[in-house]
C-alpha cells in the first residue's frame, strides 16, 4: 500500500474512534421537562436536580467494583449480585431482567481497581454522566474513602457499597451524605475477631499486619483495641506494601516476640503469600494465620495451596431466620446456576445494596402519564436513608443516618477454619466454627 493510503487509513481509524466515543456520550436523557404528571417533584428546589428517563428508556445504574486485577474475584462476584438483583426485580430468578416502575435497568460497569486512583477515575467517569441515577460500589474502601464518595456525592449521586468495611466511611465526622453501605462496619468485625482469638482460641498474644489501606488498617486497629481491652497483648503492629512478595524478613522479625496468632486482613495475593511464608519461619511453627473477608476468595486456595488449611477467616453471615432464609436459598441456587460457585463473600451484600436503593426509587419516582420517570436526587437520598426493616439477604436492613444499612438487631459474623469455608475451592456446606451477633450500636458504643 502506498504511503498515502496508509495515512488515509490512519486518519479514518482515528476519526472512527472519536465518533465511537462521542456517540456514547450523546445518549441523552431524552424526554426531559415536565410531562404533566400531577405531583412532579420540585426539581428546581433540589440543588442536585432530577433525573428524567423518557418512555422506554432504561434507568442507568453504575457499578464501581474491582473487576480487574488481583481483587477481581471480589468485584466480579459483587457484580453478579447486582445482576441477580435486577433479575429478581420481577419477583423471581429466571434470568430475565425485571423493571423498576416500568423501566428497564441498564448497568454501566466501571473498575475501582481496588485503589484510590481507580476510585478517582471510575468515580469521575460516572459522576460526569447525568443519566446515572446511583452507583453500586466500591469494592475496596480505599477507592471510596474521600475519593469516589466525594466525587459522586458532590453531584448528588448515591454510592452504595456492598463490601466497604472501613469504619471511617460511616463515622460521624467523615461520612459523605450520599454514601451508604450494606457491608458491616469493621468496628463489628474487629471486635468479633478479637473475641474469637481471646476467648475461643484462648490466645493472649497476637501480631497484626496491614497494608495501610483503610480496610486493612481499620480492621487491625479495631482488633487491636478490643483485643487489648479483653486483656490480650499486640506483640507487633506491622505494615506491608500489598505489592510485595517476600514477607519472610518481616515474619522473622514478628516471630521474635512470639505471637500466638498473626492477624493479617488484606487482599490476595498478600494474604496467601503471608500464610504460605509463615510455614517457612521456624519460630512461627504452629502459629495460625487469621485473615478476613478480603482474603476469603477462591484465589486464596489457589495461591496458598496446602498452607490454606488450618488458617482462620472471618466474614459476615446472613442473619438466620424468617423469610430471608427462604429467599436466600433460592438466591444461592440462582447464583450457582448462572455464575457457578461464588468467588467471594459479598454478593449477597451487593444484591441488598441494589435493592435498598431500588426500594427508595419506587417511593420517590414520579411516573408521568406519557411513561416518563422523574426522580429527584435529594428526595431519593432522603428516601434511602429512611429505609427501615427491609428484608434483604443479609438480614433485616435499616439505614441509619451515617450510612450503615444493616440489621439493627444484630450483625452475624462467622469465623471459618479452612478448608471448611463456603467459597469456591472450599466446602460449600461448611459451618462456621465460631459466630457472634453484635449490634452496631454495641460495637460503636464501647
Amino acid at each position: 500500500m502506498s504511503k498515502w493510503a496508509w495515512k488515509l487509513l490512519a486518519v479514518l481509524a482515528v476519526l472512527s474512534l472519536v465518533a465511537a466515543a462521542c456517540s456514547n456520550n450523546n445518549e441523552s436523557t431524552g424526554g426531559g421537562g415536565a410531562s404533566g404528571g400531577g405531583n412532579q417533584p420540585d426539581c428546581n428546589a433540589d440543588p442536585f436536580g432530577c433525573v428524567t428517563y423518557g418512555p422506554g428508556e432504561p434507568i442507568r445504574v453504575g457499578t464501581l467494583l474491582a473487576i480487574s486485577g488481583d481483587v477481581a474475584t471480589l468485584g466480579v462476584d459483587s457484580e453478579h449480585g447486582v445482576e441477580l438483583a435486577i433479575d429478581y426485580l420481577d419477583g423471581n430468578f429466571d434470568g430475565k431482567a425485571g423493571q423498576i416502575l416500568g423501566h428497564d435497568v441498564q448497568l454501566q460497569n466501571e473498575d475501582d481497581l481496588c485503589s484510590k486512583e481507580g476510585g478517582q477515575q471510575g468515580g469521575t467517569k460516572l459522576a460526569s454522566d447525568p443519566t446515572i441515577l446511583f452507583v453500586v460500589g466500591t469494592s475496596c474502601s480505599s477507592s471510596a474513602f474521600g475519593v469516589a464518595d466525594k466525587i459522586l456525592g458532590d453531584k448528588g449521586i448515591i454510592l452504595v457499597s456492598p463490601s466497604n468495611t472501613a469504619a471511617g466511611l460511616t463515622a460521624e465526622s467523615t461520612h459523605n451524605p450520599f454514601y451508604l453501605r450494606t457491608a458491616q462496619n469493621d468496628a463489628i468485625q474487629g471486635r468479633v475477631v478479637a473475641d474469637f482469638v481471646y476467648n475461643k482460641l484462648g490466645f493472649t498474644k497476637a501480631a497484626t499486619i496491614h497494608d495501610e489501606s483503610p480496610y486493612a488498617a481499620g480492621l487491625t486497629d479495631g482488633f487491636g483495641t478490643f483485643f487489648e481491652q479483653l486483656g490480650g497483648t499486640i506483640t507487633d503492629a506491622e505494615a506491608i506494601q500489598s505489592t510485595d512478595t517476600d514477607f519472610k524478613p518481616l515474619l522473622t522479625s514478628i516471630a521474635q516476640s512470639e505471637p500466638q496468632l498473626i492477624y493479617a486482613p488484606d487482599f490476595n495475593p498478600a494474604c496467601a503469600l503471608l500464610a504460605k511464608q509463615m510455614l517457612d519461619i521456624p519460630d512461627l511453627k504452629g502459629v495460625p494465620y487469621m485473615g478476613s473477608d478480603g482474603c476469603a476468595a477462591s484465589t486464596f486456595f489457589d495461591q496458598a495451596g496446602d498452607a490454606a488449611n488450618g488458617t482462620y477467616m472471618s466474614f459476615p453471615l446472613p442473619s438466620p431466620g424468617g423469610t430471608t432464609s427462604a429467599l436466600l436459598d433460592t438466591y444461592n441456587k440462582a447464583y450457582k446456576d448462572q455464575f457457578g460457585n461464588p468467588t467471594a463473600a459479598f454478593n449477597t451484600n451487593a444484591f441488598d445494596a441494589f435493592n435498598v436503593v431500588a426500594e427508595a426509587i419506587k417511593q420517590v419516582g414520579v411516573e408521568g402519564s406519557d411513561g416518563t420517570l422523574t426522580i429527584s436526587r435529594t428526595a431519593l437520598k432522603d428516601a434511602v436513608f429512611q429505609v427501615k426493616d427491609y428484608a434483604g439477604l443479609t438480614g433485616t436492613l435499616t439505614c441509619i443516618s451515617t450510612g450503615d444499612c444493616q440489621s439493627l438487631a444484630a450483625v452475624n459474623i462467622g469465623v471459618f477454619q479452612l478448608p471448611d469455608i463456603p467459597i469456591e475451592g472450599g466446602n460449600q456446606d461448611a459451618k462456621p466454627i465460631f459466630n457472634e451477633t453484635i449490634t452496631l450500636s454495641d460495637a460503636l458504643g464501647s
Partner: protein
Amino acid sequence: MMTRGTADVVETSEAPAELGRLSRFPVRRVVQWVVGVGVLLLAAYGTYETIQLGRFSGAAWRDLLVFGVAQGAIYALIALGYTMVYGILNMINFAHGEVFMAGAFASYFVARTLQNSGFLQSNPVVSIAILMVVAMAGSVGVAVLLERVAYRRLRKAPRLVPLITAIGASLFLQNTAKGFFGPQTRGYPTPDVLGGTWTVLGIPILRTQVIVIVGAILAMVGLIMFVARTRTGKSMRAVAEDKEIASLMGIDVDRVVVTTFAIGGMLAGIAAVLFTMVFQVVGPFMGFIPGIKAFTAAVLGGIGSIAGAALGGLILGLLEAVGPSLFLTGLGVKGPNQLKDVIAFSILVLVLIFRPGGLLGSDEAEKV
C-alpha cells in the same frame, strides 16, 4: 621593597584566594558529605540500639541474612539482563521485567500439566529441568522479539527514544499477558520435596533457597565464563567497546546484539523459575517490581558491569531483608519492614553521590 611588594600582592589577592578555596570545596559537596555522614551515623546508632535491645536471636539474624542472599540472587540474575544490554547498546531495557514474567508464564502452563499428570511430584529433578528450559525459551523468545521489533530500528536514534519505547513495550507486554491469561495472580505448583529445609554447613536453610542461591551462582559463573572465554563473548566485549570499529573488524553487530538479548532472556528465564519456586505465584504484573529492583541493583553495582550487577543484587537483597530490623528497630520506628525500600533506595542515593558510576562501574556521571 620586595617585602612590601609581596605584601601588596598578598593584600590584593586575599579575597580571590578565599573564593578559590570555596569553589574548590563547594556547598553542594558539603551538603552531600553531611547527608552521607549523617545517614551513616543514624544507621550505626540504630544498629547499636537494636543490638542493645536484644530482640533478635542469633538464629533470626542468620535467617534474615539467608533470606537476603536468596532474594538478592534473584535480583542479580534479572539485573544481569539490564546491565548486559546497557553495556552493549547504552540503553535501559525497561521491558526486561516482562521478559522475566514471560518465562514464568511459559513454565507455569507446563508446570500445571506436569502437576496434573503427577510427573512433577514423581520426578522433581527432571520436571525442574524441563521448566527451566521452557522458561528460558519463553523469555528468550520475548527478549529477541523485543529487540527485533522494538529496538533494532531505533539503534541510531537519540537515547531517549529507545528508553520510551522500552517503557511502552513493558506496558504492552503486561497488558497482553493480562488479556491472554487474566488479571489475577495464580498459584504455581511446585514439587513437594522442595518443602522443608536442608542443613548446609550446620545451618538449616529452606530447600528452595538453597536451589535459588546455587542456581544463581551457577548461572553467573556460566555467564562470566561465556563472556571471558568464548568467541561470541569476545565479540560481545568488542561491540560493547565500540560498535563501529567492531563491525569494521568483521563482527556482525546485529548478531551480537541478538545474542546479548538472548542471554539476558535466558538468565531472566532461570530467575523466573527460581522466583516461582520460592513464591509459588505467577501473574501478569509480577515482573514489574522485581524488574525495578533489579534495575536498581544494576545501577547500584555499576550499570554495564557484570560483576557489579551480581554485587548490586546481593547488596539490595541483604539491605531489604536485614536493613529494616537492623537499622530501624533500635530507633523505635513503628512497622520498620514497611520501610525496606526506603532503606534500599537511600543507600542507592548515597552510593551514587559518592560514586556516580555505581560500586564497580566506571567513575563518570552518566545521564540515563
